[in-house]
């Protein structure tokens, strides 16, 4: 069977790369080659089984029975699993190909064998998370995933930043695992069994308080993994420091495990949701989306910027899921399916374009040896293909038509708008307001990617490294190309793709929407209700092609003889533009920083040295600093408080034997009093 084959390919890739770690070339080719092979198998498997509309693709199989009673590892795959397996396989495939070229940059410097092995292992355990059939399988794969990702975040551990990021990442991961564990155990308690099969609908057996508690635990747990605000602090720290192929995997796939978990739990296990579940998810999604993109705008570290965008997109996904839950509550199953499709569609979209962008960032990083956008520039000419791929990713993530980001956001908008009519309570205002915030997010994302692409790839190089940059190697480009193609496919052919989601919605909400969502000729995506609205990205694209003759004809009519001359950029007659005169990334986002000053609370320091007058400074030092409000207002105080408490407690062990004797003495006396 294909999936088994894929898993074995990962295992083989892992083992092979470890065994061959001394021969790095071989380890690279074998490790990432097998990972790519596994990816192909995974894609074929999941697409074929989704296309066949199978609800259950793998019946529960017990892989291993542990020594402890009830500890078993069971895998099973249903449509939901298949969908996420598709994501991990597709993205994994592209990243593997990319890595074949990218890992060369580590030759002689780091252990490529280990990198390839961990990469394979990550793909393996992530796939296992998605096809876990019971709690144990899920948790083990979950923890291993966190562990391996920790290893990769700390891969370049010589860097202090990477070490700290790794620690933060691992701690947060562990926290989420703890929450999830507790939530699952609460459910398992009611079911008396750990298998997912017996957990289905188990929420009905719990008291409302217990269900709410379990829901909260899951939201916190999966929310941390997904990187939802305010549980996101690890994400912008950890994703950038990992090797870029791993960043791509983390941002593209790993955080989706949180989404998978939420969907699995909320739609299958917890039973009929109360209104506030969906509403809180919708609200959390909105906040994540807006804050994620706002913080992204303030970044000039390319990978951190991308990491913050992951938060934003997770927010958008959560909006879809939250809306779906709200519709389930109000009894609009069709709408719930629509919102769910919107969320899931955005999930795969984000996986594809975020991975693409991280791969692009990786190629850039390799070429320029920096993540700082202020030292880039001019790469569009030096790295033509990379810039093209990155641009496609940027357009897609900014939710601009006709690419895939637009399609899923369109679905989200539609479900939000339709949601207004589902209830008469005040809650319904959340839908259009959420939509407006989504619009804000989209516009800010566009602004952010204008900055990201513009500052990185356009204009003059801002450093020697950027000046000497050259195009990445072929596998690196192919890897990006695969994802670019996926972006385009998902953008232009949503009707084809939506069919794959049918078994999924059938499983989770009992409805299949692809028939209703697509018109006869397969071009148009229309809403569940006939008049809701239509869009056809393919149509738009074709129309653009049809209309292209208009400007071309104008050109032919008027400007046949016009020639084109290359000249220096207009510099107002000065002695020429230097890169210092270009707009910087920081400068680009300055207006927004000013507008959202209350949120960002930027600190700036200007040191000016001058001889005669401050207007003629001899040296000028400008420093601008910004910290996340959650960091400064919540996480740091808590951390400090914990440390202070620990230091206080440390005084207990002050080294005095007398004190120690007193502890024992007091314990004894207290127990004696207690006993008698």
């Amino acid at each position, binding site marked *: 069977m294909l999936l088994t084959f894929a898993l074995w390919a990962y295992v083989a890739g892992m083992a092979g790369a470890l065994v061959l770690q001394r021969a790095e070339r071989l380890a690279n080719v074998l490790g990432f080659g097998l990972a790519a092979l596994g990816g192909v198998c995974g894609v074929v498997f999941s697409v074929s089984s989704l296309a066949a509309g199978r609800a259950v693709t793998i019946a529960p199989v017990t892989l291993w029975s542990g020594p402890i009673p009830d500890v078993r590892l069971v895998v099973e795959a249903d449509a939901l699993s298949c969908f996420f397996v598709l994501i991990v396989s597709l993205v994994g495939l592209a990243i593997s190909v990319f890595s074949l070229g990218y890992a060369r940059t580590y030759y002689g410097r780091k252990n490529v064998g280990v990198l390839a092995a961990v990469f394979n292992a990550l793909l393996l355990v992530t796939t296992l998370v998605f096809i876990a059939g019971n709690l144990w399988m899920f948790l083990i794969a979950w923890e291993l995933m966190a562990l391996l990702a920790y290893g990769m975040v700390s891969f370049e551990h010589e860097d202090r930043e990477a070490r700290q990021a790794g620690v933060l990442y691992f701690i947060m991961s562990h926290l989420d695992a703890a929450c999830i564990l507790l939530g699952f155990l609460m459910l398992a308690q009611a079911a008396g069994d750990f298998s997912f099969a017996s957990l289905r609908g188990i929420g009905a057996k719990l008291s409302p308080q217990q269900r709410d508690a379990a829901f909260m635990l899951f939201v916190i747990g999966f929310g941390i993994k997904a990187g939802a605000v305010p549980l996101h602090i690890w994400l912008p720290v950890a994703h950038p420091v990992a090797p870029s192929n791993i960043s791509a995997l983390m941002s593209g796939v790993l955080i989706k495990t949180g989404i998978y978990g939420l969907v699995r739990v909320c739609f299958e296990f917890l039973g009929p949701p109360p209104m506030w579940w969906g509403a809180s998810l919708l609200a959390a999604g909105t906040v994540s989306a807006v804050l994620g993109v706002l913080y992204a705008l303030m970044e000039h570290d390319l990978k951190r910027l991308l990491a913050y965008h992951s938060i934003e997109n997770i927010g958008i996904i959560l909006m879809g899921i939250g809306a779906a839950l709200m519709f389930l509550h109000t009894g609009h199953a069709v709408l719930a399916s629509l919102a769910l499709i919107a969320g899931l569609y955005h999930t795969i979209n984000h996986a594809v374009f975020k991975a693409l962008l991280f791969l692009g960032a990786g190629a850039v990083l390799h070429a320029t040896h920096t993540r700082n956008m202020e030292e880039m520039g001019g790469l569009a000419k030096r790295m033509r293909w990379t810039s093209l791929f990155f641009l496609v990713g940027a357009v897609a993530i900014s939710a601009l038509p006709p690419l895939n980001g637009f399609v899923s956001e369109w679905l989200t908008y539609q479900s939000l708008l339709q949601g207004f009519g589902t209830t008469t309570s*005040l809650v319904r205002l959340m839908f259009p307001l959420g939509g407006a915030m989504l619009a*804000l997010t989209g516009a800010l994302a566009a602004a952010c990617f204008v900055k990201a692409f513009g500052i990185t790839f356009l204009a003059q190089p801002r450093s020697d490294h950027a000046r000497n940059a050259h195009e990445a190697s072929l596998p690196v480009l192919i890897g990006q190309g695969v994802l670019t193609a996926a972006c385009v496919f998902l953008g232009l052919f949503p009707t084809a793709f939506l069919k794959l989601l049918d078994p999924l919605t059938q499983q989770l909400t009992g409805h299949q929407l692809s028939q209703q969502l697509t018109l006869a000729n397969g071009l148009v995506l229309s809403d569940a209700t006939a008049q809701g609205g239509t869009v056809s990205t393919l149509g738009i694209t074709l129309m653009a092609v049809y209309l292209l003759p208009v400007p071309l004809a104008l050109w032919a009519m008027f400007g046949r003889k016009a020639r084109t001359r290359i000249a220096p950029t207009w510099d107002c007659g000065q002695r020429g533009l230097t890169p210092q005169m270009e707009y910087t990334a920081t400068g680009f986002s300055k207006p927004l920083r000013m507008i959202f000053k209350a949120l960002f609370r930027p600190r700036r320091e200007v040191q000016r040295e001058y001889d005669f007058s401050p207007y003629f400074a001899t040296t000028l030092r400008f420093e601008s600093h910004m910290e996340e409000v959650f960091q400064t207002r919540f996480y740091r105080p808590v951390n400090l408080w914990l440390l202070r408490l620990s230091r206080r407690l440390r005084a207990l062990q002050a080294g005095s034997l007398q004190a120690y004797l007193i502890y024992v003495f007091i314990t004894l006396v207290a127990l004696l009093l207690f006993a008698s």
Partner: protein
Amino acid sequence: MNLDPLNFLGQTLALLLLAPLLSGCIKNWKAKLQNRRGPRPWQVYFDIAKFLRKDMVISEHASWVFSFAPYVVFLTALLAGLMVPMINAPAPLRLFGGVLAVVGLLALGRFFLALGGLDPASAFGGMGSSREMTISAIAEPAMMLAIFTVAITAGSTDLSQIAQSTQSATWKLLNPAHVLAFAAMFVVLLAETGRIPVDNPATHLELTMIHEAMLLEYSGRYLAFMEWGASIKQLVLMTLLVNVFFPVGLAGPQASVAALGISLAAYLAKLLALSAVVVVVETTNAKMRLFRVPDLLSTAFVLAALALLSTFLFQ
């Protein structure tokens, strides 16, 4: 879906031809209101024609994005325009996308416009891009919310659908939600088309300019497409405003020639009326400081939110 070729062709031509005229008219009227004679309303055609014929000078730093952007700007504006009902209610490309697609396409155009501004490594371009993206970012939610208000009432995001349902008897044009949403949309229109008090289309001072700053490096054919695209975008937005909020006289699906004629007349009248309002606003206001603009746009947002709330209250 079947494309009505006549409708398609007609609207394409209307967009291409009407847009410069509208810009010219506004310029002319503005001049008139300043007691000048002003450029002729069709001056913009001349400008565009000249730019099309002229050679181009392209910055040595510019990449392929620079050359790609004008086509994108032009085509997206055109495509967006084809989704908005101008003279008869089913817009030619209505099935290809509703208001979300329109907004998306305009945003795509803006995206490339901003990139084109950044590409030649000039400080002006970067500044323009930065400001443009900033202002559009805060204008967009207000616009969306305003549109949502009407979309929710119409139960559709299809602009033709919205227009038709607005037209229907049950609809009251003076519904508070409607009026508030219109007010919000109007503010957004000013921002999106770079009008006073947000931007000054007539000057090129670096302290004020937003849109023009991005075009500084464009010349010849590209500049023509850019300018033309901008004017089409303005027309699209104005059409959106007049035909969605006041679809008086808008012809229905199988309208007769006479009805189309009436529709055209009504459309032009409404368009000119709206232009007049824009002109008056431009003439009687001073440009705002850049960091005051968010105040204006947040007012628009609040207006739109109020519109939404009143939908809730009065239903």
